[in-house]
């Protein structure tokens, strides 16, 4: 077995969570630049800033507006995720988030839930159109990228950072290259270690970002916080974004279908703590 190479690492808080970047054979400065990338993308994708690119789209009242290359790619991938998940991964979730009381960063506390105003989510392709350099959102629809943006950013960041790197943005991670020992990057999943090489992992859960009986994971079929009998799913897939989509879909499918769905779409998976609902 070849000797392990030294790992550079950089840890920081961004996107409302903890982020870690690791590299083999790249200078520490590169990881610092990676943090700047995360902050720059986060500032464009957040719904909590009125000046963000996402907030401009949410406030565009049904008009076509110009968007940047990264937002366009993000929205196109979100539409693909909608198709791939049979509609269960739907970023047109802002109204339900607001109804559940998730109106501002949870570090500032939730607001009162008004679930009577929650409705099943609209089909994403019916309310969101994307063209080269532009997007149009139905005036009564709103987008929240929180459920998919971290995985998407981890994939992009890894491609940018270098050939042997790992980016972990709040648990959504992408491992690129052979890792420190040339046998993959050792990553914890459900309490065991798996060696990832050009693979991503993500966890979807209703145990975090939770307040009272509410939590952040919305079931698009009801528009309400999901209660499917599965509390947490961790998945390994070809990319972090794909892992996030598969994990969220499996959680929303519930206990009966989740194992079969994971067997068909994940490279490794952990189903945690199902309960009766």
């Amino acid at each position, binding site marked *: 077995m070849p000797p392990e190479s030294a*790992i550079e*690492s950089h840890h920081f808080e961004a996107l*409302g*969570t*903890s982020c*870690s970047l*690791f590299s083999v054979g790249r200078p520490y400065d590169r990881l610092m630049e990676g943090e700047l990338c995360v902050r720059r993308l986060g500032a464009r994708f957040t719904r909590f800033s009125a000046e963000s690119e996402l907030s401009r789209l949410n406030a565009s009242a049904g008009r076509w507006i110009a968007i940047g290359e990264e937002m366009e790619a993000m929205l196109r991938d979100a539409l693909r995720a909608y198709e791939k998940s049979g509609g269960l991964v739907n970023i047109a979730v802002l109204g339900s988030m607001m109804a559940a009381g998730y109106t501002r960063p949870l570090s500032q506390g939730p607001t009162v839930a008004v679930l009577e105003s929650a409705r099943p989510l609209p089909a994403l392709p019916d309310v969101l159109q994307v063209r080269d350099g532009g997007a149009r959102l139905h005036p009564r629809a709103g987008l929240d990228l929180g459920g998919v943006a*971290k995985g998407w950013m981890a994939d992009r960041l890894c491609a940018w950072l270098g050939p042997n790197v*790992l980016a*972990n943005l*709040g*648990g*959504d*991670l992408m491992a690129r290259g052979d890792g*420190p*020992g040339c*046998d*993959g*990057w*050792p*990553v*914890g*999943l*459900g*309490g*065991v*270690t*798996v*060696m*990832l090489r050009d*693979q991503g*992992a*993500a*966890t*979807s*859960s209703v*145990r*975090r*970002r939770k307040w009272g009986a509410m939590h952040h994971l919305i079931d698009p079929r009801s528009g309400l916080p999901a209660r499917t009998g599965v509390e*947490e799913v*961790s998945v*390994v897939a070809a990319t972090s974004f794909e*892992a996030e989509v598969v994990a969220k879909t499996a959680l929303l499918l519930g206990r009966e279908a989740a*194992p*079969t769905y*994971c*067997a*068909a779409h*994940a*490279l*490794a*998976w*952990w*189903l*945690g*703590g199902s309960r009766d609902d």
Partner: protein
Amino acid sequence: MRALFLKAGATAITVVATVASALYVSSHLKNPSAPLQPSVLNANGNGSAVTALGGTVTVGPSVRPGNTQPVTSTYAS
């Protein structure tokens, strides 16, 4: 007469081949040694299962379990 005999023979061969094929296919719905198994048909037997805290980790053939300390983990945030 000869043409009628040939037609009857061809018909008989066709019927026998159809019935035999149907019987074979219906009794061999899934070949366990086939190289391309749809993983959804094999949900419980695909990969190795490792019992972990609060659940079971299932690891498919393209992911290798490790025995070193992880540098980081996937988790809910």
